[in-house]
Structures are given as C-alpha cells and as structure tokens.
C-alpha cells in the first residue's frame, strides 16, 4: 500500500519539526527516512502512524485520506526504538495482542502467532517474558507483534538504534530478507547512512524539518542534490573549491593535477588514508593498500591530486567513473 505525505507541517512550541514535507512511498518498497537527530524524521514517521497530528498538510494511505483517522484504524504496524514490549505479557501474548483485540478465533490466533514466531526465530521463547530476552530478540518480537495484524504499512522508528553494532548488522540484513519475503510497504527511520544505503530501496534524506533529496541509494550517493546530502551519505574532503569523496581522488606522481606533499599516512584495515598538504589545504585521500604500495607513498613525498569525480552540488548529474581501485576503497569506507 502506498503512502503519500503532502505538505505536512508540525511544530512543537517554538521548534519546527516538519516544514512543508512531501514524501511518496511506493507500494511494497523499503524506504529509509535518513537524517541527523532532531531533523524531523521520527516526527514524520509518527505523523504517518497517527501518533502525532500534523498542524497542516495531509497523509494518504493507499490513496485514501488518513490524516484524521485515529491510530487504531490506520492499520499500521509500528516498531519502536526501545521495543515497547508489553512487559507483563509473555512473548506469545505480546505477538497475539493485536489478534486478541480483533477477537479472532483462538485457533486462528494460535496458528498465526506460531507462524510469526517461526518467522522471527523465537518459537522456543514463546513462554518467556520480554525481560528474559536479549535486545535483538525483543526487537524481533516487536516486529512479529506488528506483523501479526497484517498491517497495510510497517513503520520502524530507529529499530536497531538501541542494539550493539554486531546485532545491528545482523538484524538489518535479516530485515532486508524478511521484507523480500513479506513484501509489506515499509518505512524505517535511521540516522545511520550505512544502514540506509545497505537496506533501503529508496532513501529520503530529512534535515531541519525539510526533505533534502529522495531517490535510490546509488543515486543519492553518486549524485547528491545538496552539499548536506553529500556530506551526510559518506566521507568528504575539499580539493580546491570542489567537495569530493576521499576515494574519488587519484594520487599521481607525474605532476598532473594539484601539487601537494604527503603529510601523514594511516592504515585502517586494507585501506590507507593519506593526508596531503596542498599549499596549506589539508586534503584527505583514501586508497587501497596495493595502490599505496605501488605509489610508494611516505610522509614528505611530493604527489599531485586529480578528482576523478566531482560531487559538486552545482553540477548534479555528474557521473562517477568507477575504476577497480576506487571501487574497492569505496567499499572499504562502509565495511571497516
């Protein structure tokens, strides 16, 4: 089911959380609302769910106006950052909650809950209380609970934000696979660009209550519409006046490009970060180990730098030539 948000505004006292925000979420997609904390993305998600009432604008779910529909009639599944587990109910009863409210027959509830607990791999924990589960298990339970009522849309508010790095990585891969299986229109909020780039079909970058850019991950990464999007989606450095990605700079020894001197080298895994001093300007370049060895880079060495792609907001549509070397180091940025 598609979701349309049109010109939504929301203020909390003097603070503007959403300022004329419009977003289209296609049916069956997995969309990320990405942005810094306090940028309005959670408020937007809560407006879609009906947990906040917008001051203006409208929300359509499946083409029908939902702006003034109470939460319980919206048919949305909502997953909270801190799980919102019903502490006094067992895992089974948590997942069954929405079905019990809907007075479904006992047999149907049993089958459906069993099926969902298998889906989230918690069958053997059915009789436990949430307090006896780990954070990752609790969040999987919350997801099963939200899916139990077969919602038209699934909304997740920083679903992995409270988990440690390892579990977070596992769960987001699992969410991607789950979505491919269940195919329910899903929107999730995150401030982690890596999470958005890895999981989402479509990313909406939200900053200071406004939408900065919307598009598939590759498009946002390669052709950021604003400097903010470019900075938020990955590392950047300045070469002359241009804002570029550190792995989109070619280090040369033939004197072509901007001359500079290697100031400092640091190695992180198979990636080498070179800080190059170009007439007082500190430029960061990342390259892979093989390339760094081939160039025989060392502090004090004279080099010259050429941007292989310019992600200049003034020049949207610039395509990035991907050579084997920059591609590998680009991947290194996101899989340290």
């Amino acid at each position, binding site marked *: 089911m598609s979701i349309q948000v049109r010109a939504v505004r929301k203020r909390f006292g003097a603070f503007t959380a959403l300022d004329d925000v419009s977003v289209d979420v296609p049916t069956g997609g997995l969309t990320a609302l990405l942005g810094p904390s306090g940028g309005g993305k959670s408020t937007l998600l809560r407006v879609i*769910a009906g*947990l906040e009432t917008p001051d203006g604008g409208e929300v359509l779910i499946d083409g029908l106006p939902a702006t003034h529909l*109470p*939460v*319980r009639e*919206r048919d*949305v*599944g*909502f997953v*909270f950052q*801190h799980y*919102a*587990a*019903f*502490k*006094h109910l067992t895992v089974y009863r948590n997942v069954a*909650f*929405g079905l019990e*409210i*809907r007075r479904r027959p006992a047999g149907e509830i049993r089958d459906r809950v069993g099926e969902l607990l298998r889906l989230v791999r918690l069958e053997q924990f059915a009789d436990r209380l949430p307090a006896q589960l780990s954070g990752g298990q609790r969040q999987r339970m*919350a997801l099963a*609970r*939200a899916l139990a*009522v077969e919602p038209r849309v699934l909304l997740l508010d920083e679903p992995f934000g409270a988990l440690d790095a390892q579990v977070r990585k596992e769960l987001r891969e699992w969410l991607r696979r789950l979505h491919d299986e269940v195919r329910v229109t899903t929107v999730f909020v995150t401030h982690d660009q890596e999470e958005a780039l890895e999981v989402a079909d479509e990313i909406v970058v939200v900053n200071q209550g406004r939408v900065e850019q919307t598009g598939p991950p590759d498009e946002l990464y390669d052709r950021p519409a604003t400097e903010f999007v470019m900075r938020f989606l990955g590392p950047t450095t300045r070469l002359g006046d241009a804002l570029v990605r550190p792995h989109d700079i070619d280090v040369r020894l033939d004197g072509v490009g901007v001359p500079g001197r290697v100031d400092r080298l640091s190695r992180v895994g198979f990636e080498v970060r070179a800080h190059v001093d170009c007439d007082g300007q500190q430029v960061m370049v990342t390259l892979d180990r093989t390339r760094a060895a081939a160039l025989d880079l060392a502090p004090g060495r004279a080099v010259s730098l050429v941007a292989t792609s310019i992600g200049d907001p003034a020049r949207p549509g610039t395509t990035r030539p991907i050579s084997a070397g920059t591609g590998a180091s680009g991947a290194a940025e996101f899989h340290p």
Partner: protein
Amino acid sequence: MVKRVIVVVYLGLLVLWPVGLVVANSFADGADALVAALSDPVVVNALWLTVQVAVVSVVINTVFGIGVSLLLVRHRFPGRWLLSVLIDLPLSVSPVVVGLAIVLVYGGVDGWFGPTLEAGGLQVVFAAPGMVMATVFVALPLVIREVVPVLREIGDEQEQAARTLGATGWQVFARITLPAIRWAVVYGVVLSLARSLGEFGAVKIVSGNLINRTQTATLVVEQKYQDFEQTTAYATAFLLAFAAVLCLVVVSVIRPKEGS
C-alpha cells in the same frame, strides 16, 4: 554500632514502647478486655461504621487517584502544575482544618450550600457523606503519589504500541496501563486504607460524634478513655493498631515484587 543503638533506642522510645504498652494494657486481664469491648454495641457499631467509611473512601480515592495520575502524567493542559500542588495539600493541612472547611461549605444550618442540599434530602455534615468526604480528603494524595512515579517510569510507548495494534482507549488502560501500575495501586490502596481507618480530627468535627450513629472507632477510643472505661479504650485502640500493622505487613510483602 553506636549509630545502630541510637536508632533502635530512638524508635523504641518513640514507637515500640508506647504501642507495646497499648497491647500490654489491652491484654492485662487476658482476652477479657477484648471480649468485653467487642460485646459493647457502641464499640461494634463504631468499628462497623469505620470499616464502611474507610472502604467507600478508599474506592473513591482509588478511582479518582488513578484518573488524576493519568491526567497529570499523560496530558499537558493549563493549570496542570496547580493541580499537582493542590493534590499534596491534604498532607500539609491539619485534618481539623479540613473538617471545619467541610462544615463551612456543607453545614446544614449556615453552610454555603448545606441548607440547599438538606432541603433536597441530603444531609452531609453530621452524617455519613460528610465523614466520607473528610476521609477522602485526608487520604487523597496517597494513591496518586504511588501511581504517578510508576506511570512516569514506564513511559507511554507500550500504550502507543497497543493503540497501533488496534486497542481502544479503554482496552489500552485495562490491558496495558493497569497491569503495569497494579502494584503501585495496591500499595496506594493499602496506605489509604490505613490512613482512612485511623482518621480522627476531620471526622470528629464533621461527624458530630453521635454515639451509635456517627461515631467511628477512633472517636470511641477517645470517648471511652475520657469516660474512665480505659480497658475498652485500650482494646479498641489495639484493634486499630492491629489493622494498621496488618496493612504495613501487606505492604512489605508487596514491595519487593515491584522490582520484578
């Protein structure tokens, strides 16, 4: 070690010894005093009236207390701060003042709208409604003070989750909120009950202390004591103290469960 001795001696002199003496005096002639007290219709009527007034007050305070707690924690409205200050008022105002205030408003002869109510057939002062009112007033904050911090602590995410799953306001309250605050409510109820059973000042003024009609257990204790029926006074006092201790025992049994 010295500190511990000081505390024990202090509490012993202040609490244990006097209360112990009440028990000792009640049982000076074995269970005779207690049997005698319980066969005195004045005492029995007073005890029965006390229980009735206390139970009705506790029910009112529980329903109202949970409602006000939800209002204070879950809603933002003008005057919220004032409401939360007013709720603590009964703790700082002397019960005697409360009793006088009720007489001033509901007094059958020259109260504000007491005469109007009495013309309509409802006597408040010198009758059960006034006594319930006075008792409700003095025990008002006890449920709220227990429930509010727990409501704050559990937050409203569980309630929001229940709403997204299709629960109505009432279903959210019955299935999510109430189970989450149940121990706080029980604790508040027990405290309110203890406070209501033992109320003296406000009830004395409002009830008129009419024997067999508006005389509660605490008022009987005072009257019997002044009428040189010390053994009956001690026996009744013992029953009140026993009920209070029972309440405290119930509370201390409940307390550890709050953590889990």
